């Protein structure tokens, strides 16, 4: 198994418990915003997700996880092989939905549409939390198929040149 351990050192990695924690917080915040009818909660969630997508190191979810959740022993990091890029993209998609919802809720009379967008994020984050299906990642890979994302050129011997 030493070979296996050494072999895994160069793998792309993701802390899956941080992901689950982020999804859980998003589910909670979007649900709470809808139930108590507070658009500012939608905006706060949107801004958190914007930060998570653009600057993951200062994501409030990550900071809360790193400085509170893990030290208290509520969750322990679980590092698995995975590509972080699609997950960041998915958070960006969630942020876009919630920003659109915020605009509709604050600046227009189309509040129902705004809350529908909020509930879409609630549902998609809930699916990711419970069954691990990441709809944003699904979109990311399909955009890749259409050539809308940088394509990974593949050489023999599993060496990568450019992402």
């Amino acid at each position, binding site marked *: 198994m030493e070979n296996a351990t050494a*072999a895994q050192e160069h*793998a792309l990695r993701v802390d899956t418990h941080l992901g689950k924690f982020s999804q859980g917080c998003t589910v909670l915040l979007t649900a709470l915003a809808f139930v108590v009818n507070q658009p500012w909660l939608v905006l706060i969630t949107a801004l958190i997700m914007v930060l998570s997508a653009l600057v993951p190191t200062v994501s409030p979810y990550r900071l809360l996880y790193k400085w509170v959740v893990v030290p208290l022993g509520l969750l322990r990091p679980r590092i698995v092989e995975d590509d972080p890029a699609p997950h960041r993209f998915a958070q960006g998609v969630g942020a876009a939905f919630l920003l659109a919802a915020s605009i509709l809720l604050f600046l227009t009379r189309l509040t129902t549409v705004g809350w529908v967008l909020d509930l879409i994020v609630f549902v998609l984050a809930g*699916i990711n939390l419970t069954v691990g299906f990441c709809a944003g990642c699904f979109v990311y890979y399909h955009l890749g*198929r259409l050539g809308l994302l940088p394509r990974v050129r593949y050489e023999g011997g599993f060496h990568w040149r450019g992402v």
Partner: protein
Amino acid sequence: MSPLLVRLGVLVLVTLLLSLLVWMGRRFVEMRRRQALAAEPLVLEMLPDAEKTIDGIVEVSKAGADKAEAGATKETAVRILAFSSDDCHQCHRLQAPALQRVREAMGERVTVIEVDAPASPELTQRYHILTVPSTVILDAKGHVHAVNYGFASTQRLLQQIDTVLAMTV
């Protein structure tokens, strides 16, 4: 009825519908996995002949690099059918490196057979492949031991391989 209760009711309804959808999805995937696990053994000893009958197996020659290596695969204890496609980003970025790490860790005990899913309808139907990447773990006799729909990590594959090896010792 207060607006708060109405909103709470809507949220509960959405959650129930979501749960139903998730339950149905899980049942569907498990049904397909059971069908795949019950598939007839794939007789890889007949690889040269199989090239004529099972379309996807042609890819073996590409993955195995040469005939000598293809011959060596007949001695391996575990075979992994790795379903992918040219335009599958995740297959190339994640699954292929994970399979390479498995090969490096397990050496000649494991052979990875790459299958181009779109060009291999017979194999994709045989193992009820729902998505790419997918991996099917076969023992030396071609019996299916595990089916992974979606990306399977190095650790997961190694665990499945260990299980097969433990059963064959």
